[in-house]
């Protein structure tokens, strides 16, 4: 009957029950969300590090950011850089990219990035070029035979501008109009031309999904840049151990024209930033868990004080201290379990929506280890809370307990 009493006791004040369970479940939900957030950051930085540990990026000397955004300045890597790069030892792959920008029809203050690539090369993202590898979700990818053809694969957000969705996808012709482009990367003089969208991709990043990949020669044909060159060159080195030697050789040969970026530094920076965020998130997780525990602690404290007369009655009719303590512990444990259960259910169904504003890869898998630890800690604190308040009353005689203030 001890547990039955515990269950019956929590139903005594339905409003309090709802508030307490809500507070516990919100705190538990936060713990799960922060844990997912933290795990997501860890996973993506690890992926980033794995993907970039033997890559180097080159861009025009002094160019800012990934798209070389210096207004009215010619910031392209000269073609000879590509030739020089190919002479360097330990390089297994060289990928060149040429970028153009096109304002969106729906909002001219936002731009899509048109990326000219060699079909078959890695489709790199403007903001996360180091990672690359967006996923084709409809149609097909660019193939080596597409070289020089007027075809492209488009990001799912940019595709909406042309009424293309994953559901209705079929090869569709769109018009690229260089005259609409601001000469923000390099001057262009080409004319509007149709290309056929043969595939639709998803990158997991908003800016990534605002890209269009077309063969590099096609981009040159349409945009007709007044100067030849590349926006980026990505180099794959045979081993991460040779990165330093390759970088040094490249600096000697093309350092006058190109900045050589070792994305591993970027990855390490992201990794250390990620680690800092993870530490903060862990603190947040601890704080949320502590909040849940404090709620249970104070509820037990209030409950015990409210029921001191009842405790006196239990003692007067022969109830042992063990029985009385057990009853309150059962109550705290049940409350904690209900709160945690609701949090787990909420996180399973709504975690995705609740964490959407963070725009980072969040791990929605429920970490049962964290849950078990959290419930154990909460129950532990609840037990301490129960014992702290009840021990003061339990030591009294039944008459004193009934009078206790």
């Amino acid at each position, binding site marked *: *009957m001890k547990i039955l*009493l515990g269950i*019956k*006791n929590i*139903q*005594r004040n339905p409003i309090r029950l709802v508030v307490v369970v809500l507070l516990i479940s919100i705190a538990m939900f936060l713990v799960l969300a922060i844990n997912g957030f933290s795990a997501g950051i860890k996973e993506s930085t690890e992926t980033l590090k794995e993907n970039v540990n033997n890559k180097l990026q080159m861009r025009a000397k002094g160019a800012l950011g990934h798209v070389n955004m210096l207004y009215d300045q010619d910031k392209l890597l000269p073609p000879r850089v590509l030739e020089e790069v190919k002479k360097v030892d330990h390089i297994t792959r060289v990928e060149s990219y040429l970028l153009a920008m096109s304002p969106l029809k729906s909002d001219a203050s936002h731009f899509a990035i048109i990326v000219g690539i060699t079909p078959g090369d890695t489709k790199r993202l403007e903001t996360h070029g180091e990672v690359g590898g967006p996923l084709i979700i409809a149609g097909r990818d660019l193939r080596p035979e597409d070289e020089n053809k007027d075809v492209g694969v488009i990001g799912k957000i940019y595709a909406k501008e042309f009424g293309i969705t994953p559901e209705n996808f079929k090869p569709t012709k769109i018009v690229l109009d260089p005259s609409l482009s601001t000469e923000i990367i390099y001057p262009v003089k080409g004319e509007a031309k149709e290309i056929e969208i043969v595939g639709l991709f998803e990158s997991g990043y908003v800016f990534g999904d605002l890209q269009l990949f077309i063969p590099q020669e096609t981009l040159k044909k349409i945009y007709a840049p007044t100067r030849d060159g590349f926006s980026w060159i990505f180099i794959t080195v045979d081993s991460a151990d040779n990165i330093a030697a390759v970088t040094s050789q490249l600096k000697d040969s093309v350092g006058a024209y190109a900045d050589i970026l070792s994305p591993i530094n970027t990855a390490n920076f992201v990794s250390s930033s990620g680690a800092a965020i993870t530490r903060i998130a862990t603190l947040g997780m601890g704080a949320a868990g502590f909040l849940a525990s404090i709620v249970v602690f104070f509820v037990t404290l209030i409950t015990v004080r409210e029921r001191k*007369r*009842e405790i006196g*009655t*239990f*003692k*007067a*009719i*022969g*109830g*042992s*201290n063990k*029985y009385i303590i057990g009853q309150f512990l059962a109550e705290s444990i049940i409350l904690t379990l209900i709160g945690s259960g609701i949090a787990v259910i909420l996180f399973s169904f709504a975690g995705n929506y609740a964490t959407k504003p963070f725009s980072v890869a969040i791990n929605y898998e429920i970490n049962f280890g964290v849950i078990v630890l959290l419930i154990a800690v909460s129950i532990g604190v609840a037990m301490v809370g129960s014992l702290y308040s009840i021990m003061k009353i339990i030591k009294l*005689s*039944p*008459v*004193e307990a009934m009078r206790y203030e």
Partner: protein
Amino acid sequence: MNKKNIIELIDVVKKYSKGATSVVALNKVCMKIDGALMAAIIGPSGSGKSTLLQIIGGMDKPTSGTVEVLGGELSQLSEKELTQYRLKKVGFVFQSFNLIPNLTALENVMLPLEFNGISHAEREKRALHLLEQVDLTQRLHHTPAELSGGEMQRVAIARALANDPALMLADEPTGNLDSENGRHIIKLLKHISAERIVIVVTHNEKLTSEADKVFHIRDGVLK
């Protein structure tokens, strides 16, 4: 004489202290009851009646003196033994019933039986029998809030009898009841006293007239 049926208090003093102030609730009280009977303790408010009852019931400890109840000296008992004493030898009936509000009448009566380690089936059987004796078979599954004052007191009496104690103590058992319900409770207590010692603290003249022995107390002194 069978000492197991005797209550004897010798020079019992109970003082309450708060800061420098000390109140003497019982002053060298001596009292003896032997055999099954109904005894009444009467006196004005604050005279120490309830304190005396609580000391006999092992719910409070005297400041000094000897309290020998049913063959045992209460001051010699440990906390655990006192709990067992309250559980097995004493049934206590409170003026304000002190039923557990979220348990039904049946569950309230079953509670001391559970403390005593009786199996669920057996405690349900005994509780049903006791509630039948106090004429509450129709109200088994009602919570205290759904019962009248008289019904609540009858549940409290059934609960006090659950472990078949040798001693029943009732503190103003009719204090919160109308006269008709009061009469019913007096009759019940009188009936119960045929098999055990029943000590009642009361202002009720009818209850006093039914008692086999009456103790008068004033300012903590028993007359």
